[in-house]
């Protein structure tokens, strides 16, 4: 569900014909009447880095439409074995499982990029789903995007080397952070990619030597986006394509 590459630019010059007063592209895809009704039901919230919005098996009380924040979806088998399987930013929403008729979360949701989001109670969201076939249709398409991402992650983690996966992951993060610079500790990246920290250090050093990124004291700067795309496995481009095809 990676966004089109020009996204970072779009933020400054909104795409023609698609004004996004909310900052969330999923909501922007709704007819204006529906969009306004839904936004009226939401409250703006500030999400902090590291905040856990859903715990596995925990009750889902709210759904979130990120407007500048982004959230990791994490699958785990125990405390030490975890893996990020999805990333939700302004292109998507957190809480589609409510649409699937579920009250509990099956994946952990952790704020990876601090920022704002629109939040709605799960109960209100269920009501809106009953009222708005357009919303349901839009979210079904988004669900397809999420599922593609999920299945891709399963294969990608199996076959691709850490350096390729790190490149893909930095690009996905960039798209959602809407910036070429972000704060990330190696520990956090290791945890998300499900590898040892030493592996991340090696991969980051390799990318740095190729002048694709700069990495100092937890600050990542992407110096050469195109080069990083070439260094990434094909999964980044594939996910971008699925998103574009499904959501346009």
């Amino acid at each position, binding site marked *: 569900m990676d966004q089109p590459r020009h996204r970072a630019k779009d933020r400054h010059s909104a795409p023609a014909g698609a004004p996004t007063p909310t900052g969330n592209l999923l909501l922007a895809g709704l007819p204006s009447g529906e969009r306004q009704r839904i936004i009226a039901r939401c409250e703006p919230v500030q999400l902090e880095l590291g905040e856990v919005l859903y715990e596995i098996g925990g009750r889902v009380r709210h759904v979130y439409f990120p407007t500048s924040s982004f959230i990791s*979806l994490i*699958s*785990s*088998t*125990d405390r030490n*074995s*975890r*893996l990020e*399987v999805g990333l939700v930013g302004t292109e998507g929403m957190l809480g589609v*499982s409510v*649409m*699937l*008729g*579920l009250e509990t979360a*099956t*994946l952990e949701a952790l704020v990876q990029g601090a920022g704002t989001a629109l939040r709605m109670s799960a109960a209100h969201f269920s009501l809106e789903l009953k009222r708005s*076939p357009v919303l*349901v*249709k839009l979210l*079904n*398409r988004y*669900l*397809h995007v*999420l*599922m*593609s991402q*999920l*299945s*891709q*992650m*399963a*294969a*990608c*983690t*199996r*076959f*691709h080397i850490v350096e390729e996966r790190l490149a893909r992951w930095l690009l996905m993060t960039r798209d959602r952070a809407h910036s070429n610079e972000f704060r990330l500790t190696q520990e956090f990246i290791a945890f998300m990619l*499900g590898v040892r920290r030493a592996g991340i250090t090696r991969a980051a050093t390799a990318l740095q030597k190729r002048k694709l990124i700069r990495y100092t004291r937890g600050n990542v700067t992407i110096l050469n986006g195109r080069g990083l795309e070439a260094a990434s*496995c*094909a*999964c980044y481009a*594939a996910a971008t394509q*699925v998103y574009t*095809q*499904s959501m346009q």
Partner: protein
Amino acid sequence: MAGIGFPQQNNILDALPQAERERIYPHLKPVTLPLGKVLYESGDLLRHVYFPIDCIVSLLYVLENGASAEICVVGNDGVIGVALFMGGETTTSRAIVQSAGVAYRLTGRRLKQEFERQGETMHILLRYTQALITQMAQTAVCNRHHTVDQQLARWLLLSLDRLPANKLAMTQELIANMLGVRREGVTDAAGKLQRLGVITYSRGLITVLDRPRLEQLSCECYSVVKKETDRLTRARAIAVPGQQFPT
């Protein structure tokens, strides 16, 4: 495999209320699916969906270089082709028959019509989708963190749950493709299970002798997926006389 079975032997078709059944059942067509048949390739337009009765279909994610890994397995608990009703039209995975048998086939157009009514059919299909999501996420984390031995045990259990007997016709090559590991890895893991008296393996037929032990040897990913699938679809063993292991 005994005859063509009944639509009700598929949990999704069985869960449909009467009115939905009357609209859908007349359009179901039983088809026999041989081992190894590819129902669709990644990127294909989906023309049909399949409701397995006693066959198993694996969904594989195929990477650019042709390597593939199984992301989920579908039997009489589910349906193949969920991308279709989600409006995806094309699929991002390959669906391949992992164990031969019968399925009921429905045109994509018919299922879409029914789904778009946004009634009970939609809810049933979405709940199943959630079970698939759980399976995919668990498979991803399992691929990353668990040994081939554990993964083989998980894979055998998930397959057996979708079969009427405790036997599975399967080559090591196919298993290696499913798990996305080298063949030697599967040979080693299967050899261990055989020495422990948990399975026998001869001429492409795997027979599970000690299921409780197999569950112990599997990582917890099996029980996570099973619990979630049971919770979200209605758990029902396939009613076949002579079934040796109650599921």
